[in-house]
Structures are given as structure tokens and as C-alpha cells.
């Protein structure tokens, strides 16, 4: 279900955290999906059970997962209210800064970059319908 690489250098908890977060956001793990028990997931990947329980707890706090008494954790329904535009723009800032810096190094003009961005944008929009619907 998850791809964990203990020897990649990225902490295992972070790999698992980001995968569940992404899979829940993209609908690959629809609301209500049951997650493996801490013990089962730890055994499957031969990793520390505490790592798994830490991830589950963090995602519960974030509202991505729901704890159910005596039953497996499940993926929560996404919150109705999306975070405000300013906050979402803030999240993309580091990527934009990176893009601008790389563009300077490659001696590209603003309009070159905007054009490339536009093309990339169009391309993702042509992906299969179900992806587009979810993005909206």
C-alpha cells in the first residue's frame, strides 16, 4: 500500500506522513478507507511501531485520519472549508522562489518563464477527466 525506503535519507515517518496525506487528498484513499494496524504496518515494512503511531497521531491532529474506538483508523472526510487563498499562495512561495532563482541562473526572461509555466499548466489540464474534477 505504501512505498517506504528506510535507507533513502528522508526520515521514515516523513515518507509515510506525506504518502498518506497525498493519497487522501487525491482520493486514492477515499474517506472511510481503513488503514492497517500499527503492528501490521510495522511488521510489513520492518520498521519501528512508534514511527507508525507517530504518523497516525499527527494525521489525526491534522484531520486527515479518524481514530475509531476499537477499530482501525480511517481516512476522514475532507473539511468543507478550503484554506484561504493567501495561505495557499504562501505554500507555493518556496517553489516559485526556486523557479525564479533557477531562471536567473539560466538567463531566462520573465516572459520565457511565464510562457513555460503556461504550457505546463495546459498540459496538466489535459490529463484524464477524473483528475481534473478532483482538482476543482
Amino acid at each position, binding site marked *: 500500500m505504501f512505498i517506504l525506503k*528506510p*535507507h*533513502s*535519507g*528522508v*526520515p*521514515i*515517518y*516523513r515518507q509515510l506522513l506525506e504518502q498518506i496525506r497525498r493519497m487522501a487528498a487525491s482520493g486514492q484513499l477515499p474517506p472511510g478507507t481503513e488503514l492497517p494496524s*500499527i*503492528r501490521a504496518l*510495522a*511488521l510489513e*515494512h*520492518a*520498521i*519501528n*511501531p*512508534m*514511527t507508525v*503511531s507517530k504518523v497516525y497521531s499527527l494525521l489525526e491532529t491534522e484531520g486527515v485520519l479518524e481514530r475509531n474506538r476499537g477499530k482501525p483508523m480511517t481516512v476522514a472526510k475532507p473539511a468543507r472549508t478550503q484554506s484561504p487563498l493567501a495561505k495557499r499562495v504562501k505554500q507555493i512561495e*518556496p517553489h516559485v*522562489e*526556486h523557479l525564479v*532563482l*533557477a531562471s*536567473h*541562473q539560466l538567463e531566462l526572461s520573465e516572459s520565457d518563464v511565464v510562457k513555460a509555466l503556461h504550457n505546463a499548466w495546459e498540459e496538466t489540464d489535459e490529463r484524464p477527466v477524473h483528475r481534473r474534477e478532483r482538482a476543482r
Partner: protein
Amino acid sequence: MSAPYIVANALGKSFNGTPVLADVSIAVEPGDIVGVLGKNGAGKTTLLELLLGFTPATAGSAHLFGYESYRLPGAAKARVGFVPQQDELINQLSAADQIGVIASFYPSWDDALVLRLSREWEVDLRQRIKGMSVGQRQKLSILLALGHRPDVLILDEPVASLDPVARRQFLEQIIEVAADGRRSVVFSSHIVSDVERLANRIWILKEQRMYWQGDFDALKESIVRVHVRATHALPASLAIPNVLRLQRNGTTATAVVRDWSADLQDRLARQLGAEVEVEPLTLEDIFLELHR
């Protein structure tokens, strides 16, 4: 949080005035899996033996379950399992008889667990220990340390002679021990990849001292390789804090940094007008960097 199972304060040991371990302060909480790393002779075995109370400390203190390790009462000893680097099996016995000898010391011996594991691990109970391979002996030693379901399991290089399949079976058993969060495991190993999978805490010993200890995730996020790439010559001073090692070449520089924090990346990028990329390191890389 419940009291830690193991506590050491400024723990040290000297032989005839020569220190073999100095100034170690640690704590092991229930549920912890601690990986102990260090080159040969760094003090790993000495540390484990001091924590277990096999030998008296010459400085500081070691406590197990709240008792001084060296004066551990019998009831507390029964809560500890230990796998020594050199096994202490009796050559003349069969595996079954050896198990019987050890089991007789413990009222809480779990026969069903030992039988199940001996089947899964392919340890032939009828075989004489004398005729066993090093790997078989190692498996039997681990079985003997698990049989009384100890609250604290301490293993000194437990997997050095195991094949990959047996090593994975061993790791799974450690997970079973730690899964309920009430028992702890401390193990030393040169097989860094096993430590990387299992440990939530890391102790790195270097030259008879605790060089680094802490949360494993924190270690991975704290020691990183930073690549700086600019289109202009970089200034003489890069002002990167806590550099362990630096290589530079005109417009580019690579630094291994300790105590890294994520906000440094943006700050450096702006200060230097350069692209700053952070490369996470594997535990093996970190260990090697700390020993350069």
C-alpha cells in the same frame, strides 16, 4: 509518561586509570528501540555491560528499573534479557536441554513462544550445540533471551552471523516486543541498515564517549549535506553555521552541517544569492561523516 527503564548519569569506567567509557548520560523509556553505533573499541560493549550491572561503574551511575544496575535484585533481573556478543551456550547440551536449563530460572517462561520461534527460525532442538553453525548458535541465544518475555532486551551485535532471511525474522521479533509500547530494546550493530529501520533513538559512541544521542528522525533532519550553487564566485566566508566538513570550488560549495534547520535554507539562498539544495543523508553516510 512512565518512569524510564534505564537511566545513566555521567556513567564511566576505567581500568587502572585508563578510561574505557566516560561521561555517558542516557535514558531508555518503555517502547524505545535504541540503536547503538560505534567503531570497534568505541565502548559499546562496555556501556551495555555497565547498564546491565555485569561490572561496577567507576564514575557516575547506572540504574535499571529504578535499582542500581550492579546491585539488581533477582526479581528485576528476571525482567531483563541479554544476548552477548560471544554466546554462552554449553557445547555438550542439545538445544532443547539448553533451553530447559535457562527456562528453570524463570517462573514466567513462555514455552509456546520458544517452540513457535524455533520452528520459524529453523533451530533444530534435538541438535547438539557443539555441532551448530555460528548462525544457529546466534539464533538460539536470541531465543533464550526472549523466552521469559523480558521488559528490557539488550543485544550486543546480535545479527552479525545471520543471513538476510534470519535477520529479517529477528527484526520482526523485535517489532513484536516493542509493539505494545511497554517493553524496550537496546541493540548494538554494525549493520547500519537494520538500525535505520528499527531504531527510534540512536546512540553514537566515539572514542569512549557518547558523541551523539537522540531521536533518530531528529538526527536525520539535523545532519545534512548542503549544496550551494551560484552563477558568481562565492564569498570567502559562506557563514554556514556548524559545518563539519566543507568543500568549495569557485561558484559551488558542498558542506556537511550539524544542527541544520529548515529556515537556514532560505536565509542562505538570499544571503549568497545562490541556489541552496539540502540533501538528506542515510544513517551510514551520517556515521561515516562523523568519523572523517
